[in-house]
């Protein structure tokens, strides 16, 4: 006489796991199971919008730190960190000549973690320029600009320029002596361009010298125009890395 087979008794741990990770709501958010099998490990990358910047598999040599030193990724990391700290700084900062400097002072003295946020934003901006330059050197010395990746190198050069412009426009915002005169020196250089020099300088400053118009222009460029542009070019950059076959490797 056959006895009905019963599934093995499930322990408390499994029940707890199922309660949290096999319920209807969790499954509606994360479609793949826990990434402890190759199948789920590939699914977790392929079904997640952030992780799917990566392929699901990658050549063995490309995960070696010394191949890339993570420099491109670190640049992107700096960009994300700058976005987060930048949004927090925007809560306390008004880009008017009357208020800008006082707002920064208040940020340093009255706002909890305000000084930390400003410091982080500043040092990450410097770090981003350094990592961009190092990333460019890495790509150059590994010959990673070679066909079929020519265009992505051009996108990289554009991103380098955007990084410098982002940092430069942010430099004016504290409205202290350092900011004011650095931007004065910088925009005087722009003004010395042949043919369109004076016009470009006027366009950038909204006047003949650094003043209220320059502050609002630099602010708008810094917090919305240039970050959007950079994000678009970054999307192209990352997309092309994938489309052109991932990281360069010997043919």
């Amino acid at each position: 006489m056959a006895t009905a087979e019963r599934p093995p008794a499930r322990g408390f741990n499994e029940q707890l796991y199922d309660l949290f990770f096999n319920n209807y709501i969790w499954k509606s958010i994360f479609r793949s199971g826990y990434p402890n099998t190759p199948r789920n490990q590939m699914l977790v990358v392929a079904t997640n919008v952030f992780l799917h910047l990566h392929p699901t598999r990658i050549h063995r040599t490309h995960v070696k730190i010394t191949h890339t030193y993570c420099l491109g990724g670190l640049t992107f990391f700096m960009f994300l960190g700058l976005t987060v700290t930048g949004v927090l700084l925007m809560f306390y900062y008004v880009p008017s000549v009357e208020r800008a400097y006082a707002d920064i002072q208040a940020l340093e003295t009255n706002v909890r973690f305000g000084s930390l946020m400003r410091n982080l934003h500043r040092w990450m901006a410097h770090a981003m320029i350094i990592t961009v330059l190092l990333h460019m050197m890495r790509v150059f010395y590994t010959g990673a600009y070679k066909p079929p990746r020519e265009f992505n190198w051009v996108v990289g050069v554009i991103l380098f320029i955007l990084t410098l412009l982002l940092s430069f426009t942010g430099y004016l915002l504290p409205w202290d002596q350092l900011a004011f005169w650095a931007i004065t020196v910088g925009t005087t250089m722009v003004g010395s361009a042949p043919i369109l020099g004076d016009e470009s300088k006027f366009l950038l400053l909204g006047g003949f010298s650094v003043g209220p118009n320059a502050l609002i222009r630099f602010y708008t460029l810094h917090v919305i125009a240039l970050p959007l542009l950079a994000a678009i070019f970054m999307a192209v950059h990352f997309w092309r890395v994938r489309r052109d076959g991932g990281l360069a490797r010997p043919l």
Partner: protein
Amino acid sequence: MAERVVAALQRRPRREREEEVLVWPDLVFVEFISAVLFTVSLVVLSVFINAPLLNRADPDTTPNPSKAPWYFLNLQELLLHMEPAWAGVIVPTILLIVLAAVPYWDRSNEQQGVWFGTANSVRLTIWGMGVGLFGTIWLIIYDGQKHVEWTENIIRGLGLNRDFTWPGGLDWARDLRSLDTRINWDDLSFTIGDFKMFQDWRAIPLGIPGTTEDPWLLNLNFPSFLSQQLIPVATMIGLPVLLYLFTRHKLGWIYSRRDTAILIFSGFIATYIVLTAVGQFFRGEAQELRAPWDIVVVEE
């Protein structure tokens, strides 16, 4: 080109599964750990070192020296040695275009994806960086009249001549601008046939039609043009070309465009770093060359 790449890609085994690893965990964890490391170190840095905040901006009080942000100090440094239009706009624009154009010029797809792929690339890098480093430092020393000061100090210091000063006959070699200011250009007129050439070197009539409103194109100030435009530009083009020719024909290290690109790029990187560092650490009051510990900012 595209066909060659596709063909080369097709020649390799279609799936090298045994050579591949899964992105999760092998890559994602590396990224996660480096993100954590950098978050922690940047937070620690930010706790201990404050971002600078000087006095409120005051258009009537100019700090001396006034400096651009550090990543533009390379351009500000160039500004001291040539016409502003070249240093601030034309040179960086051309450089960025040339940089972006590198892959369209060096189209071979060999040796990609490995560090220093060609046989001579390491020595080309070191050589290019060395020449860029010392060449740029030497040019800055020359244009800062440091060679004059040092020659005087050495000869006086050795006791050869206690009152030694830079000889007047070599006044033109004090720095670049001395070619303009320390030569009496009025004496340099000469005649070819019936023409007396350039009675006034500082206003050579160019008379380019339709440019009457622009005095620069109407009358050329030759001494200024020579020292602030011709020589700087010739130097910036000529020295890399000389470096290339010497490395190719005397040293024999260059076999491909990739080699040339490595040499010139390395020289450029070193020059870029030297210009930035000199602008940041060695320029004091009135943009004079100073030791880093002698630099004070005066507000005037």
